[in-house]
C-alpha cells in the first residue's frame, strides 16, 4: 500500500493526491503538522527527507520525494495506457519542461500564499509579480493551444501530469493575493481540469458542482 506523507492544504501534496485519485490507486496518508508545528523540519522527518519538504511517497521499499518526481513515477508505474506520461521522447521532454514551470509557480504563487495565509517571511511583491509573469505566459500558451484544438498544457488528446502539476497553485493563487480574472484561457483550462473523471478537491479548490 502506498503511503503519502501529507498535509491537506499543501498544493504539492494535492498534486499527488489528485493523480492518485484519477488513476484510482489506493493509498494511506501520514498527516504532518506543517503549520504551526513545522513537523516537516523536525529531526525525525529530516531523516525521511533531508530537504525537509513534503510530499514524500513510500511504495513498498521505494521512497521518493519531490511532487514532480512522484507524479512521473506514479504515471509511469500505475497508468498502463501511458496516457498521463506517454512513453514518447517529445512528449516526455515537453511534459518535463512544464513540470519545471510548475516548480516556478510554486516558488512564486505558493510563496505568496505561504506569506499571506501561513505567515512565512517572503518578499510578497516580488512573489506576486513573479506569479503574474508566469500566469501571463501560461495564459498565452493555453490560448494558442486551445485555438489549435489542444485543450491541455502539453498534449492534445488527454491531460498529462503537466496539467496536474500546474493546477494547484494556479487555483490557490487568490489566497496569495493573485486573482485570475485577467487570464481567461487559464480559467477555461481550470474548468476542464475539474471535469476530469475522478477529480478530487482540496481545501480552497472546489470540485465542479454536480447539477442537481
Amino acid at each position: 500500500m502506498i503511503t503519502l506523507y501529507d498535509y491537506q492544504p499543501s498544493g504539492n501534496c494535492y498534486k499527488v493526491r489528485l493523480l492518485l485519485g484519477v488513476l484510482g490507486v489506493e493509498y494511506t496518508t501520514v498527516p504532518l503538522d506543517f503549520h504551526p508545528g513545522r513537523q516537516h523540519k523536525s529531526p525525525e522527518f529530516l531523516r525521511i527527507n533531508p530537504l525537509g519538504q513534503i510530499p514524500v511517497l513510500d511504495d513498498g521499499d521505494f521512497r521518493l520525494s519531490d511532487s514532480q518526481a512522484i507524479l512521473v513515477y506514479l504515471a509511469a508505474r500505475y497508468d498502463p495506457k501511458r496516457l498521463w506520461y506517454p512513453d514518447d521522447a517529445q512528449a516526455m521532454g515537453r511534459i518535463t519542461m512544464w513540470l519545471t514551470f510548475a516548480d516556478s509557480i510554486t516558488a512564486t504563487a505558493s510563496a505568496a500564499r505561504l506569506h499571506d495565509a501561513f505567515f512565512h517571511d517572503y518578499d510578497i511583491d516580488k512573489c506576486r509579480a513573479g506569479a503574474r509573469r508566469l500566469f501571463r505566459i501560461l495564459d498565452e500558451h493555453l490560448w494558442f493551444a486551445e485555438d489549435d484544438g489542444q485543450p491541455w498544457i502539453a498534449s492534445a488528446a488527454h491531460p498529462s501530469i503537466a496539467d496536474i502539476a500546474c493546477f494547484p497553485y494556479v487555483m490557490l493563487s487568490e489566497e496569495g493575493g493573485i486573482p485570475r480574472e485577467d487570464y481567461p484561457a487559464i480559467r477555461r483550462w481550470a474548468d476542464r481540469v475539474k471535469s476530469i473523471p475522478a477529480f478530487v478537491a482540496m481545501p480552497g479548490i472546489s470540485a465542479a458542482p454536480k447539477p442537481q
Partner: protein
Amino acid sequence: MRASWTSCFHPVARSADLVNGHVFHGRLLGQELALWRDAEGRPNAWENRCPHRGVRLTLGLHLGSELRCLYHGLRYASGSGRCTAIPSLGDRELPRQLNVCVKTFLVRERYGLVWASLHESASEPAIAALDGARHATLRSIVIGAPAECVEDALAHYRFVPSRASGAAINDGACTVRNLQELTLACTSILGGAEEMAILIVQPADVRKAIVHGVAIGVSDEGGAGEATNASRRRSLLRHHNERLCALRDALESTNIAPAASGQARELLEASA
C-alpha cells in the same frame, strides 16, 4: 474614465470566450460581470453577484439555460435573470410574488465580440469597415493602464501585413485613425500587401483596459482556401498578439498619466 462611456456599448469578451458551460469573468467601468451563453446560444451579461448573499456568479455552475450560485444553489434564468429555484425551500414552490432577479445589462454580439452597456445606449455597436467583411478576432490583451492612455498609445500602433510576414516591423507604412471613441482602424501597407485591423479599447476600470481586435481579410471560420486562410490567420493572430503585448509592456513599465502619452510613444518606438 468618461461619463459618456456608461451609456454606450463596449466589447467585454470575444464570442469564442463564451464557451459551453463556462461563466466568463468580465469587468466594465468598474462593474464586475458574469458573461455566459445559454444552450440556445444567447449571450448574457449579468452583475457578477448573486442577489442572495453576494457571492460571485463566476464561481457558479452553468446549467445550460440557468446559472446556479455556488453558495446556496439558487438558480437564475437566462435572459431575464429571474430566480427560478431556491433549494432551501425543499419541495415547496417558489412564492408567486417572489421577484428576485440578478441585475442584468444590455448585451449584443457582433464582429466576433460580445458587447455590453451599463445603461440604456443610444447606439448599437457598429463598425462599418467590418460589416460584410471576412474577419478574424484577435486575442484580447489586458493592460494595466487606463483606457485613455491605451487609446493614446495605440495611435502609434504598427504591424506587418500577414502576406508580408517576416518583414521588419518598421518596414512599410502604418496609419492609425480613430473611427469613434476607443475604436481605432490601423492600416499597414508593405509592398503590394495592405491589411487593416480594428482595435477597440474596453475600459475595465480606472487602472485597467482590455484591447480587443478584429483583423479584416482573414476569417475565423474555415472555407475556400481553408489551409491558406488558417495558416494566415494563425500567423496574423500571433503577430498582433506580439505587437499588443509589446504595447502592454511599454505602458506597464512606467506609471503613465494621461498627459504623458509622449513617453509611451517613445517607449513604443524603442521597443519596435
